[in-house]
């Protein structure tokens, strides 16, 4: 392959590029990115970066010998011509392609676009949010998922008044299950978050900026800043009509390919998980961008084995850190195996009588053992 294009200049795209070089690809590498920035670390954006700290450097971008086309995304894919369209900019022809365009933050439906309403996905978003914090705003966070919960915790660290609105009756119910969600709810309350569970926002109003947020039970919350953290949608609009199979992401086969010489990786990719009997899944965590980015490189070069990762995530809340291995969430049976008065705990997730995942605060040393166990049960 002479020229490999990578659509998406984030962690998955960078990892794919590094792995291509490691495996000896000495042709051209073209990185096409929507953001004007070279790859950077996103995890700090909802944590210490909002407090004015945190280095976002990702090593390796300068060493891959790539051509960087940043600030404009690919807007179309022509599979037969093997070319990425970029509007008025010249198209990028390729012999091989990695799709790693990630996700974008979901918006609050019907809320319009009043100033004072923000989402958090990229560095520009984080800078805008950071700037908005300097005026001591009363904050409403919509959505108590990973990002919303972390933002609420970080802003409480700044002693800002935070109301956290969640549709489910506990935070993080789907990714962690009822019982762990209840632990997270207690953490939020203990740190002074005004937690509104089982509620959703039905209206946002203000004359020139956000002033009031109305909930479905009629409650009106005065607010200066509304942070919308209602999940994310895969960036696949540009692939409609391309012939690739799209199903809440770009679907790849077990070898990591969406079409001949076209791979996909990271948040945007969906694949049949052997660990979950072939169910199509996507894993929108840091660890998966690294694992699947490398796998996409091997897929393009024809040296990939079946992609069967054991994913992992972490979430920082008020000095506690939740960390997981494998598959977690409300779909699985939870067994709490340790629970200490100081808040440390360890829980397993079971599916059809087998352990498929675990989550902990304070017992990280047990996770490698679970990782082995989960990988082995698959074998």
């Amino acid at each position, binding site marked *: 392959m002479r020229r490999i294009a990578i659509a998406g200049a984030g962690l998955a795209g960078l*990892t794919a590029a*590094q792995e291509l070089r*490691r495996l000896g690809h000495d042709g051209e590498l073209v990185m096409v990115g929507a953001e004007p920035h070279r790859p950077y*670390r996103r*995890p700090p954006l909802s944590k210490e970066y909002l407090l004015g700290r945190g280095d976002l*450097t*990702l*090593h*390796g971008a300068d060493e891959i010998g790539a051509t960087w086309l940043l600030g404009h995304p690919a807007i179309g894919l022509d599979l037969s011509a093997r070319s990425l369209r970029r509007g008025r900019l010249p198209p990028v022809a390729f012999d091989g392609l990695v799709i790693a365009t990630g996700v974008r933050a979901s918006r609050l439906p019907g809320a319009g676009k009043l100033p004072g309403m923000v989402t958090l996905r990229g560095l520009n978003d984080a800078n805008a949010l950071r700037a908005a914090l300097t005026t001591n705003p009363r904050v409403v966070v919509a959505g108590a998922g990973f990002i919303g919960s972390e933002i609420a915790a970080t802003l409480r660290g700044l002693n800002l008044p935070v109301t956290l609105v969640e549709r489910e009756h506990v935070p993080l119910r789907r990714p962690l299950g009822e019982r762990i969600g209840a632990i997270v709810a207690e953490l939020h309350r203990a740190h002074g978050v005004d937690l509104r569970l089982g509620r959703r926002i039905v209206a946002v109003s203000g004359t020139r900026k956000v002033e009031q947020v109305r909930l479905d039970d009629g409650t009106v919350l005065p607010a200066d800043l509304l942070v919308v953290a209602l999940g994310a949608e895969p960036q696949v609009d540009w692939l409609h009509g391309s012939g690739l199979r799209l199903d809440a992401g770009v679907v790849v086969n077990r070898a990591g390919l969406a079409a001949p010489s076209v791979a996909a990786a990271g948040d945007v990719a969906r694949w049949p998980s052997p660990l979950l009997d072939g169910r199509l899944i996507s894993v929108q965590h*840091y*660890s998966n961008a*690294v*694992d699947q980015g*490398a796998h996409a490189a091997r897929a393009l070069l024809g040296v990939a084995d079946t992609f069967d990762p*054991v994913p*992992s995530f*972490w979430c920082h809340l008020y000095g506690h*850190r939740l*960390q997981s*291995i494998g598959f977690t969430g409300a779909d699985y049976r939870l067994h709490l195996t340790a629970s200490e008065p100081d808040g440390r705990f360890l829980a397993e997730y079971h599916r059809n009588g087998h352990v498929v995942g675990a989550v902990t605060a*304070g*017992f*990280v*040393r047990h*996770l*490698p053992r679970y*990782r*082995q166990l989960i990988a082995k049960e698959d074998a």
Partner: protein
Amino acid sequence: MRVRVDMTQCQTHAQCVFAAPEAFALNDDDELVYDATPGDALRPVIEQAARACPVQAIFLDGA
């Protein structure tokens, strides 16, 4: 090969332990311990461990 972890940066996210358990482990206090001079055969998994580190604290070969 030589491996160095900047322990002032390490927050034990354990991603390196998952990627390369041959060279990285956690002790009973959830602290990272590692082999600073692993065999060259481990290079691919240790490079993957370095990439997987969310605080980018793993350095190879004197870097």
